[in-house]
């Protein structure tokens, strides 16, 4: 008879290496979704124990206690207590501890014990602890805590063997008799008492050498230096954006020529007509022009994941806390805002680490101003078409510099908007506290980073295959129908629905230098920003006729003035964001009004910025 699926839950403080243990146990057999009703990410994975038991394991959000101060922490509490809707009570809780830092986890474990759930304490990163001269009397610790204890090295092959073995032993012996849940929220004196108890147990079972991690101290001497630290942070961001622009080029060229030859193949093999036009202009040039940006999206996530794993993100929050405080932002907002460079959706979801409601709202409102990866295609296209690829001061690529400037413009306007919100909307502002653990630096684990990038790349391609694909079909349809009357001499698109819509909008957009083709592209750009590029591609491809198998960039360079191009860049700094971002804002703020406010203010800013840019550029002779 097959044993039923064994349900495990991973609980631990932030930075305990929970996620790397999760990755080590489940590899790529992971399922990422949301908990019902809330937007907390639910990560579930599967594996089989050495004895063949099927196991499901859920990686719960990190927490220092079961008090449930934020939506994340409430999930962890409710899950462990079996109160989370639609979730099974875990058969076994794995309490994960960073072996170099047991104090806070042991206190959490003492609190968890009261829930009555069967539990294992996993001393993770045991190799690092040993290297630092920390010794743990594992048997004694298990006896004192009344909980089985096992060591693990999540990042090493076979480093979880003991844990797997113990899981088998415990699951075989799991008693059916339910243990009473005696947990209730701890008062201050009980908290203090459990911390004292934890400290006593640690004093008995763990010998700590007096030397802290020297590497962390050495790096922090520079990375947290009041001035030096900020310079380092600026350098990291600068390298990141140069890299995204310059290093991704070869891979992008490769993808681009791949799609080009695919398009030529279709043109050569299929007879002229609607099917050929649909495949070549609608599908291949449309979807292809978005997929081309995969290398850049992988690179930006690579940087963000590396910095996160390395332990630098908390330092960045520390350095930026007071500086962002000047603009009315909380230091913790730095991490969600930095993630928003990849995509505003995870960024807005990450604002849940900010427990003050007003701080959180401000961060949500400005997160879409951070230049997300979906804008990269638009920026890249226009920059490479209009900005010469020469070096300035000998070593800085001018195109990269413009890219950096666009990112900087996004950041500065975000700070200004936040300042305005603080000043006009939230007057009775009392600064919420900033309390954050600065974890020891750790070498990022290749496997964790690879899994992280793989998940994101998959999401991007999925989007390209669904949202973007369907928008492209729509655009192609609008641009192709109705068909021109026989004997017409003008390009076919002049007779299409797209041209009618675009021309109807043109008067509104003429002051900012946009032609009707751009107007057509802006509309689907709201479904997903990167579609704008694809839409331009389709519109110009159909306009040019089937003979014009040119790069979109080259087409734009001949059709647009520099002023229009710059105006378009300015528009996309603010770019009334994509529908999915608006949906997330609606969900996270629980309010249609805030969603409307975000959309309206960004639209106004985009229009104003483009208007100014266009007119200044024309006045300077770039029209």
């Amino acid at each position, binding site marked *: 008879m097959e044993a039923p699926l064994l349900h495990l839950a991973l609980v631990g403080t932030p930075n305990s290496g929970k996620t790397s243990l999760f990755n080590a146990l489940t590899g790529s057999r992971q399922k990422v979704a949301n908990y019902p009703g809330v937007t907390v990410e639910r990560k579930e994975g599967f594996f089989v124990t050495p004895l063949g038991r099927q196991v499901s394991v859920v990686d719960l959000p990190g927490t220092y206690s079961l008090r449930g101060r934020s939506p994340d922490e409430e999930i962890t509490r409710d899950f462990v207590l079996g109160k989370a809707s639609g979730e099974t009570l875990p058969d076994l809780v794995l309490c994960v501890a960073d072996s170099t830092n047991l104090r*806070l986890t042991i206190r959490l474990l003492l609190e968890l014990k009261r829930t009555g759930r069967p539990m294992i304490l996993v001393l993770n990163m045991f190799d690092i602890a040993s290297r630092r001269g920390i010794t743990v009397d594992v048997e004694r610790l298990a006896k004192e805590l009344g909980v089985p204890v096992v060591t693990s090295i999540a990042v090493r092959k076979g480093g979880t063997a003991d844990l797997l073995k113990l899981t088998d032993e415990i699951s075989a012996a799991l008693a059916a008799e339910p243990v009473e849940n005696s947990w209730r929220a701890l008062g*201050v004196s009980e*908290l203090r008492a459990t911390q004292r108890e934890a400290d006593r147990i640690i004093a008995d079972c763990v010998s700590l050498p007096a030397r*802290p991690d020297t590497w962390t101290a050495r790096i922090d001497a520079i990375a*947290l230096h*009041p001035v030096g630290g900020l310079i380092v942070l600026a350098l990291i961001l600068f390298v990141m954006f140069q890299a995204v622009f310059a290093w991704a080029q070869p891979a992008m060229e490769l993808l681009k020529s791949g799609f080009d030859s695919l398009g030529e193949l279709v043109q050569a093999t299929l007879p002229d007509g609607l099917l050929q036009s649909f495949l070549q202009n609608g599908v291949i040039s449309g979807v292809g022009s978005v997929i081309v940006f995969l290398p850049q999206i992988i690179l930006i996530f690579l940087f963000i994941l590396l910095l996160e794993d390395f332990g630098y993100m908390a330092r960045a929050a*520390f350095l930026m806390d007071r*500086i962002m405080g000047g603009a009315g932002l909380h230091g913790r907002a730095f991490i969600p805002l930095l993630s928003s460079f990849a995509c505003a959706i995870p960024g807005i979801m990450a604002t849940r680490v900010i427990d003050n409601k007003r701080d959180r709202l401000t961060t949500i409102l400005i997160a879409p101003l951070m230049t997300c990866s979906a804008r990269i295609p638009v920026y890249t296209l226009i920059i490479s078409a209009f900005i010469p690829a020469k070096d300035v001061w000998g070593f800085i690529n001018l195109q990269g510099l413009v890219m950096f400037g666009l990112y900087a413009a996004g950041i500065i306007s975000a700070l200004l908007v936040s300042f305005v919100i603080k000043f006009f909307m939230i007057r009775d502002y009392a600064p919420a506290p*900033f309390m954050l*653990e600065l974890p020891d630096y750790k070498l990022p684990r290749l496997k964790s980073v690879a899994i992280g990038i793989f998940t994101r790349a998959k999401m991007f391609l999925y989007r390209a295959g669904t949202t973007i694909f369907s928008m492209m079909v729509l655009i192609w349809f609008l641009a192709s129908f109705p068909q021109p009357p026989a004997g017409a001499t003008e390009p076919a698109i002049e007779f299409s629905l797209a041209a009618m819509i675009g021309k109807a909008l043109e008067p509104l957009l003429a002051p900012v230098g946009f032609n009707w083709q751009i107007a057509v592209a802006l509309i689907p750009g709201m479904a997903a920003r990167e579609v704008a590029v694809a839409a331009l591609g389709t519109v110009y491809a159909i306009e040019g006729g089937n003979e014009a198998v040119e790069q979109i960039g080259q087409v734009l360079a001949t059709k647009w003035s520099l002023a229009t191009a710059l105006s378009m860049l300015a528009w996309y700094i603010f770019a009334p964001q994509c529908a999915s971002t608006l949906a997330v804002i609606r969900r996270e703020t629980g309010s249609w009004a805030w969603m409307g406010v975000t959309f309206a203010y960004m639209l106004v800013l985009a229009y104003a910025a483009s208007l100014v840019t266009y007119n200044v550029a024309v006045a300077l002779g770039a029209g």
Partner: protein
Amino acid sequence: MTDSIDTRSHMPLGLAQRGYTGVIQHLAAKEAGSALSDVELESRLIELGFVEGARVEILHEGLVGRDPIAVRVDNITIAVRRREAMAIIVA
């Protein structure tokens, strides 16, 4: 009271300079003027390891107003603003 035999006078950690080392004497959430309630502030400080008897050292300071501070609490490092650190009485 044992206060009288201490050789160093008690002070809030929020006033200490970079390089300061000491031991936590008690928590005084009321005096901090934090946006959090007293109980909430005290709970959070305890959850991050700020309990009586813990050794603290100020490792780093921010640029603006030398705030926030990075505090070594026994063997972990916690970033906290001076405003909240006023609740931690050290000697």
